[in-house]
């Protein structure tokens, strides 16, 4: 295969785009699709062709645009990048037809500057709200902008240049060094320094090595990784290629949960396109480097997000964790050195290579660098997928980006880190986003779930909700997690129902210690976090629920 000329592909794509007088981005992520963006797209194409605009206007089905609470979203770009931009919320087919007929068409006829009719303007989202202005998009830079199913658009947006750069200019060692200097840490929740993981894998002896992309995102309410895979799959593939080059791996596995069919479809499509363009396979870009990827589906076990369980699952075995050491970097998939990186982690890599470790490390706190994607949900006015620099305070996220309480009731706490995380009370809203800071407060960064809670939320019920999830998802291998979780859940439910007593509460604390200290893997060790942290900050709520001798 002749080696691809990325510049040429990008030039042709940009020229093609430049010929269009307008561009309409329609969110085609799972969230918006389920609220009807598929029908919106059909209506849009129909309306455009009936107005004779089919050739002039480009319709781009994109990944997640972020403000999921207001979807389906439709973005208009009239007159190129310096032209006019509009974002419509909660669109439907009728509204779409009206937008084309009453806004787009007259705008194009008027040469761009056309006042939005009043009956449509109520559907317009102001683009200057903090939800849009306070974000810093690195990982999500392409999501919501490009068509994830076209490799040309990714290349036109600067894609695969990082790969080209390292293959031409950098030794594997230098790549690891660059990633290490960037301060990038695992975005799946563990926060392990990515550079160190790569170094360990590179240093392990073994003929065959593997890169595994962990796409088994399973926290309830979290969909960062799904959105990245759906919205910008090539960024993850490029990240894997760079990781493969750095550690000396020739193949990679995507492990994606089967409940993410669209992500799987887009990744498969992207792999095919990359292969077609010679960006995967043998002698990539004319170098000695060969690498290819395959996809394995997870069958929906939360514990398979734990890397040793994940590897067992890829091998076709029952997905249960095993003790470490040996670490996967020493002996992983089929006993070969393996590097397991989360989707978001890998998606950061091309940007780090393109813009440099210094740029990346310039964002964030002392120990947590770069940006982090969160799924902001719950009682926030604006909720959805956001990306902020590390070090941004929870207050900025909740009050500014999230627009404060959606219920009108005062906020009470923020739950972070999903079922392995905990609550941070509203009194600590000035806490910056940082792995260590969250941990000090009894929660974790986790993969990026962030749920805003108000006064109506009962903390014992919240704790029971999350614990029920982990109890359900415990693999059952080790006793502290398997039995401890269930016993604790029964006690919590009893307490939440007003049937518990002081002894029950002390048993809860004892179980928490046994699970934290005695469980084999992170799932069991962190399962008590929602309970411990609600007890830490809202003990009074629990005490009020207890039966006393007087009752």
């Amino acid at each position, binding site marked *: 295969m002749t080696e691809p000329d990325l510049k040429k592909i990008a030039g042709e794509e940009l020229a093609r785009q430049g010929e269009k007088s307008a561009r309409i981005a329609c969110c085609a992520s799972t969230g918006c699709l389920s609220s009807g963006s598929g029908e919106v797209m059909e209506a849009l194409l129909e309306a455009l062709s009936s107005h004779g605009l089919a050739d002039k206007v480009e319709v781009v089905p994109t990944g997640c645009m972020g403000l999921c609470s207001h979807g389906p979203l439709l973005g208009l770009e009239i007159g190129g990048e310096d032209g006019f931009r509009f974002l419509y919320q909660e669109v439907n087919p009728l509204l779409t037809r009206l937008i084309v007929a009453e806004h787009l068409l007259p705008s194009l006829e008027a040469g761009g500057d056309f006042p939005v009719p009043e009956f449509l303007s109520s559907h317009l989202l102001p683009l200057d709200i903090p939800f849009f202005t306070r974000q810093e998009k690195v990982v999500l830079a392409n999501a919501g902008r490009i068509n994830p199913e076209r490799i040309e658009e990714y290349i036109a947006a600067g894609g695969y240049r990082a790969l080209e750069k390292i293959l031409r200019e950098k030794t594997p060692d230098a790549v690891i060094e660059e990633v290490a200097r960037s301060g990038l840490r695992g975005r799946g929740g563990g926060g392990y320094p990515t550079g160190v993981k790569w170094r360990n894998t590179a240093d392990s002896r073994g003929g065959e090595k593997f890169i595994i992309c962990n796409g088994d995102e399973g926290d309830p309410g979290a969909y960062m990784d799904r959105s990245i895979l759906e919205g910008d799959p090539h960024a993850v593939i490029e990240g894997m290629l760079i990781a493969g080059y750095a550690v000396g791996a020739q193949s990679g596995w995507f492990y994606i949960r089967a409940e993410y069919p669209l992500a799987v479809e887009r990744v498969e499509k992207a792999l095919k396109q990359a292969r077609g363009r010679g960006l995967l396979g043998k002698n990539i870009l004319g170098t000695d480097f060969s690498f290819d990827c395959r996809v394995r589906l997870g069958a929906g*076990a939360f*514990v398979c997000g734990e890397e040793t369980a994940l590897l067992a699952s890829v091998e076709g075995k*029952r997905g*249960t964790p*095993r*003790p470490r*050491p040996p670490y996967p970097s020493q002996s992983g998939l089929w006993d070969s050195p393996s590097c397991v990186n989360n989707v978001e982690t890998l998606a950061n890599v091309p940007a780090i290579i393109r813009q440099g470790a210094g740029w990346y490390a310039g964002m964030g706190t002392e120990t947590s660098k770069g940006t982090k994607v969160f799924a902001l949900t719950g009682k926030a006015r604006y909720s959805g997928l956001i990306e902020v620099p590390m070090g941004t305070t929870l207050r900025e996220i909740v009050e500014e980006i999230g627009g404060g309480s959606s219920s009108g009731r005062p906020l009470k706490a923020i739950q972070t880190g999903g079922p392995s995380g905990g609550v941070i009370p509203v009194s600590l809203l000035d806490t910056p986003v940082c792995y260590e800071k969250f941990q000090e407060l009894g929660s974790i960064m986790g993969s990026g779930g962030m749920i805003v809670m108000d006064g109506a939320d009962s903390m014992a019920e919240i704790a029971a909700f999350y614990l029920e999830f982990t*109890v*359900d*998802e*415990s*693999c*059952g*291998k*080790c*006793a*502290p997690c*398997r*039995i*401890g*979780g*269930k*016993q604790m859940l*029964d006690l919590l439910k009893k307490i939440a129902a007003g049937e518990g007593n002081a002894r029950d509460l002390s*048993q809860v604390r*004892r*179980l928490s*210690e*046994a699970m*934290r*200290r*005695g*469980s*084999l893997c992170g799932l069991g*060790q962190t399962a008590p976090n929602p309970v411990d942290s609600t007890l830490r900050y809202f003990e009074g709520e629990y005490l009020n629920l207890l039966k006393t001798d007087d009752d």
Partner: protein
Amino acid sequence: MINLTINGIGVEVDEGTTILEAARAAKMNIPTLCRHPDLPPAAACGICVVRVRGRGNLVRACAAPAEEGMEVTTHDPEIVRVRRTVLELILSGHPNECLTCLRNESCELQSLAAEFGIKEESFPPLIAEHPLDDSTRSIVLDPRKCVKCGRCITVCQEQQNVWALSFLDRGIETRISPAGEIVLAESPCIRCGQCSAHCPVGAITEYDQGGEVWEALSDPAVYCVAQIAPSIRVSIGEAFGYEPGTNVSGQVYDALRRMGFDAVFDTNFGADVTIMEEATEFAERFRNSPESLPLITTCCPAWVDFMEKFHPEMIPHFSSCKSPQSILGVLAKTYYAEQRRLDPARIFMVSIMPCTAKKYEIHRHKTMFASGRQDVDVSITSRELIRMIRQSGLDFSGLDCLAAADSPLGEYSGAGAIFGATGGVMEAALRSAHYFVSGADLRDPVIPAVRGISGVKEGEIAIEGRPVRFAVAHGLANVEKVLDKITAAREKGDDPPYHFVEVMACPGGCIGGGGQAWEVDDAIRRLRVEGLLKDDAIREVRVSHRNPSIEKLYRDFLDRPLSDKARQLLHTSYRPRRKYRR
């Protein structure tokens, strides 16, 4: 070597040693429930947690390798509290039915509870109701009692390569079961009982038939006879305070007589007969149809079951000769009955075996009724016999260690004695095969290449200048290696890699059988093997064909090996069961 400290005490261990083993080397015991010396650490139970300086969380001593400079604490208030809570949790998932459990007083969970001084049920019981599975009539699976240590599954899948048992469901619903909502009898289970021998609690036990034996013994109209398997004599003493490997044949014979058996035989006699038939079979194939080699031994019923299910293409290589148990059964009801003028219908034959699969063998095929009725009526395991001896009130150590079995079915050669150890059948068969082919005995009856407990042993002897290559495998996962070689050679059209193959399903052979007493490791297996080899070494007659009782048997009753009568009484056949093929 690695230097570390355990509670401040320095200890030097080999690389690859776990913290648990290192602690034992430092004379410090760390409690554990799921760990078994035969198996890789599962790290399942969470009891063995220890503190390692510099590590954020407690680590599992069973699985964590010792590292240079490591500082380990095995006991402190937090560690002990966590262990206790975990133990109490396990107890909450286990029925409090010790008094009505076969493992009462031999249960590893019970011992832990005693060690921790558990006085109350801290947590409400969380026991899922699953039906008892005794469909195999060999082993009994009671999922309610399972503590999910995973030993049985590792043994079934990795040691035995059978895959009858797996973990099903997850979390608190996790259970062990054959996959697909079927009972064990419908599963690939070969009834070897290794799961039951490795179970720390009473979740998998032998199918207990002690009651049936007592019933027969108490019936004056029934003439009760017993036979004891080769390996029993070197294992059963352990339950009564003897060192592993101590030969307690005399005490066992005496105990059985005192329990009421009218005659006590020794399966070793049956082993000598097996050799007469099997070695003759080998000699005939070796002389007349070398292309039909290798000949594969069939004394082990679990192996027979395994082969019928997974390797039916090997059936033509199987010796048609019955196992010593079955041979002794049929001879008791024919030859012995004739001699003693007993009505065979009155004879009740009880075999005492190291094996749960022997319970299946006695009705496996219509040839197991060669005497006109079921040749062996009940087969019980070592564990059942130990219980029966206790029930009978006998003071085992006070029994007659010089007691002898009844003649003639109790007289055996050294070749019969070693049947209970891996390699023993091969060694015994080669001693006689050499004679049957060449007319001369081996200069030295000891064949070192078959001895030892490594999983696959290979060797060669020469008979009349022609090589006889043999392989010995035990632990069924090891069998595949041998079969693969045979198949590969056949496909390439090469000479068979072996002429004679011995297979025993259990590690170490019958001395490590699935019906033997619990908590066996390789050290104990070695001692038991030694006990059998000693029994051989001290015998005047060390080859089956020179056992005077065997000579008489053929002279008076069977005529010669493979005679019509021998074929009718002492041989069997096999059937492919392809639905189990993988």
